């Protein structure tokens, strides 16, 4: 009886899955066009899955192995089942393999089930709680129905009235498994993540973030530019259908593992943001309906079930509530911790900035000080509204060389808006001292420099960002330099990763028509030290920890250089629990201090608490925002010092003949003339 029932079951489930897939694809296709090389993406899929995705999943070995056993077992079992039971190819070899695959899947599903006993808060419940049972039903069911095929069970067992009953029960178990695994995969069940996730990997909007066989960087963090020339193109995302189709596909790939939620600084601070819920809300919006079925942690302070949306309705309501409240979007610090942790490679920050763009550019609703800051950027080219002619006032006694006078130098020192901030001016002075000690050929733009546009862009004001970017590029194009050095990771990121879209013929870094070669001051100081151009007195202070700025670390992958500098200073870094790519944000990014969405705690307080737990008496930083945020913490247990300050304090006169060069590489001295001529 099973021989007739199984093919019917299998092919019905497959047919339903195909219908569901078509419906799901139509949901994604509501989005705006996005150019992706479909074939190339599909070819790259195995590598993206096995290398890049596994790299993220593999951070949790237990879950990684569980997934390999379960998913690998399932894929093999599903294929073999179609052959063996669907098409009736009762080959004992195939049958044996099928037994093996379903057994592997069953073992995996036991571990999945174990994780669901007292699951951590970040995991979604609801349908996800039944998934291990469905996995077991499928694997066990397939295993049992395959036993007779390979002759491990007497053929007669399933005959007679008892056999009938057994066969029926087995068919029922298999039907349950097929329902979850085939039908549920395309009709919105938990297994949707496999279908949408695979296609999302193949058609990802940022193909560059994946590694290649040739060893690509695998990092793509610059925001995508809005086309402001085309007046018909929407300015940002108003409704779910304004996302590109592959962004919508990406939202659908979410497995609701909540790793993003666990690392989100805004969520931890009790601000109304949870990256996982946001992605689920986008899925709700794409399909239409209410968020009542969501079974994970809500946005802090916002009960589930009060918001609803539709593909062509506004995401943020003009009045009342629709899908998401504006303060949810403005809580994000753009620290990218969620993107870094996401095993499905979903781009949360892109989506948030897209929606912010609509709020700012179309509605003029940047909250709190947002409007004032943007007005200042338009009128004075700096967010504080200071006289642009006073950018160099802090250095009145330093006699800094100006690009306008020299035209050509090795290093262009980009000051950033910290030049107007008295705290950061101390860092800048320290940095100048270091550069002079190392006899670096450098100059500053002085009053010709403008804000890099970082804050404007992250507040959604793409127009002001592009205006600033284009004028800065035009200024930079007047001069020749080998590299830009800055102590501001935000300027660093924008100059090196986001200006590229606006470079015109003959503009750009040392080799024209390419991105600028930008160095964070910690990287540059590390290079100077390696070249033997700096000598330090031994460290006498107390214990030190290092706080990784998001825009240096996660955005640009620079975790090593600051630590190398600290090591060179004789400091042994006491790492915080969350450091490196898992560093917790200081709360200063993405315009968050400007939009200032209230929460239960402050993000910098939590970070200084991390510092306290590390036991360090001093926290070394490398970003003016981090300095300001961390120093603003009352009753802090540690002092906050920029790396440049620590280096400047430790400088000693270089001994003649450069004696102390044990572990250092010889200087690679290239001058500007050699390269540019």
């Amino acid at each position, binding site marked *: 009886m099973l021989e007739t029932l199984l093919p019917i079951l299998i092919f019905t489930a497959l047919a339903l899955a195909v219908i569901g897939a078509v419906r799901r694809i139509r949901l994604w296709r509501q989005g705006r066009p996005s150019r992706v090389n479909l074939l190339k993406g599909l070819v790259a899929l195995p590598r993206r899955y096995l290398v890049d995705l596994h790299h993220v999943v593999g951070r949790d070995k237990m879950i990684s192995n569980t997934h390999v056993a379960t998913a690998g077992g399932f894929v093999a079992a599903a294929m073999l089942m179609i052959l063996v039971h669907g098409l009736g190819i009762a080959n004992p070899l195939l049958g044996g393999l099928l037994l093996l695959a379903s057994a592997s899947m069953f073992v995996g599903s036991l571990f999945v089930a174990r994780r669901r006993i007292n699951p951590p808060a970040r995991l979604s419940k609801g349908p996800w709680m039944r998934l291990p049972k469905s996995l077991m039903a499928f694997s066990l069911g397939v295993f049992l129905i395959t036993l007779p095929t390979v002759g491990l069970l007497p053929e007669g067992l399933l005959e007679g009235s008892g056999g009938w009953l057994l066969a029926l029960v087995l068919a029922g178990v298999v039907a349950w498994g097929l329902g979850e695994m085939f039908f549920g995969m395309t009709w919105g069940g938990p297994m949707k993540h496999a279908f949408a996730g695979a296609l999302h990997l193949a058609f990802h909007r940022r193909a560059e973030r994946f590694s290649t066989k040739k060893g690509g960087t695998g990092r793509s963090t610059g925001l995508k530019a809005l086309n402001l020339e085309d*007046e018909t193109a929407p*300015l940002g995302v108003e409704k779910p259908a304004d996302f590109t189709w592959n962004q919508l596909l990406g939202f659908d790939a979410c497995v609701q593992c909540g790793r993003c939620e666990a690392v989100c600084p805004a969520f931890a601070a009790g601000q109304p943001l949870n990256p996982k819920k946001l992605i689920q809300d986008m899925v709700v919006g794409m399909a239409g309906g209410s968020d009542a079925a969501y079974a994970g942690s809500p946005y802090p302070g916002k009960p589930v079930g009060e918001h609803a949306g539709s593909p062509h309705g506004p995401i943020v309501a003009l009045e009342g509530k629709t899908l998401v409240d504006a303060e949810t979007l403005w809580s994000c610090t753009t620290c990218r911790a969620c993107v870094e942790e996401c095993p499905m490679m979903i781009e949360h920050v892109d989506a948030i900035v897209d929606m912010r763009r609509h709020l*700012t*550019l*179309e*509605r*003029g*609703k*940047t909250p709190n000080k*947002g*409007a004032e800051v*943007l*007005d200042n950027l*338009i*009128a*004075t*080219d700096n967010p504080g*509204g*200071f*006289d*642009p002619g006073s950018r160099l006032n802090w250095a009145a006694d330093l006699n800094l060389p100006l690009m306008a006078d020299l035209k050509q130098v090795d290093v262009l020192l980009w000051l950033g808006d910290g030049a107007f901030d008295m705290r950061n001016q101390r860092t800048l002075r320290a940095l100048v001292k270091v550069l002079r000690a190392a006899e670096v050929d450098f100059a500053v733009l002085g009053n010709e420099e403008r804000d890099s546009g970082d804050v404007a862009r992250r507040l959604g*004001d*793409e*127009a002001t960002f592009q205006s600033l970017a284009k004028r800065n590029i035009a200024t930079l194009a007047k001069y020749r330099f080998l590299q830009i050095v800055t102590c501001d990771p935000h300027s660093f990121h924008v100059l090196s990763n986001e200006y590229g879209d606006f470079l015109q013929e003959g503009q750009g870094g040392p080799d024209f028509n390419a991105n600028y070669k930008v160095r964070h001051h910690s990287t540059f100081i590390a290079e100077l030290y390696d070249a033997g151009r700096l000598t330090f007195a031994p460290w006498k202070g107390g214990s030190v920890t290092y706080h990784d700025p998001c825009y240096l670390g996660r955005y640009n992958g620079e975790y090593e250089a600051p630590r190398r500098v600290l090591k060179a200073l004789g400091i042994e870094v006491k790492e915080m629990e969350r450091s490196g790519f898992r560093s917790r944000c200081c709360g200063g990014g993405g315009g968050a201090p400007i939009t200032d969405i209230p929460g239960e705690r402050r993000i910098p307080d939590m970070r200084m608490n991390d510092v306290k737990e590390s036991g360090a008496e001093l926290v070394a930083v490398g970003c003016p925002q981090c300095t300001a945020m961390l120093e603003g913490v009352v009753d802090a247990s540690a002092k906050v010092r920029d790396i440049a300050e620590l280096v400047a304090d430790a400088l000693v006169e270089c001994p003649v003949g450069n004696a102390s060069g044990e572990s250092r590489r010889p200087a690679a001295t290239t001058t500007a003339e050699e390269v540019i001529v």
Partner: protein
Amino acid sequence: MPHNANPLSKMELSVAVLVSVGRHPLTARARRADHDARAVEMALSLGNANVQLIHAGDNGAPSEEALRSYLGMGLGEISLIKQSLGADVLPALAAWLRDAAPHLVLTGTRAETGEGSGLVPYMLAEILGWPVISGLAQVESIEGGIATVLQALPRGKRRRLRIRLPAIATVDSSAPVARQNAFGPARRGEFATRTCASAIDELQAQWSEQPARKRPKRLKIVKSASARDRFKAAAAKADSGGGQLLSDVTPEQGAEAIFTLLKGEDVLG
């Protein structure tokens, strides 16, 4: 905007806002003038009023961008009366207002460029024969052609006034801050251009302009014996002792009193 939910319900109120091209105090870039923008904000917060923007002047590229930032507050159109450079815009504005016959005309207290004398609203009121009110802080209600408004006085004082419409009101920094200028509406907004003969301001043509110097501030000498004295000195009202309240006097007597005061302060020789 809680105060204007229903007072204007009977008929649609039409409000005209006179806007000018402003100038940023630090960078001198063209921008929306702060007071004018507050006037637009006031008009937009009147609920269901039909708001029209009018600018009379010469419209170069930087000033177009500045005018667009009024449109960015959420208006679809701005009426632009083309005038040659240095023209006296009063006749053109007066003619436009007579045609359009709005119930209420709002404008900033003074322009940030050009003469900036702050006299335009008064002279328009004189030409049109409408009442004028300065320092409008809030429109409380408009009923039966009478508006009840709050006028801002120094030190946060407010005075409730009832004025007959049509009227002209000026708005200064005591009015609510203007809303954000959004890029999208600013880009989409349109200019309804009309030409009007330019009246050459002959008087102004004879003047020469030079950048203003900062006026020296009168020193406030605080003879402080204690912290309490210093606090009192800092928090005290500006000393208005020695002032003179004149009421029911002839214009000649008033002018005489002002003349005496100016002489006494060494403003006039």
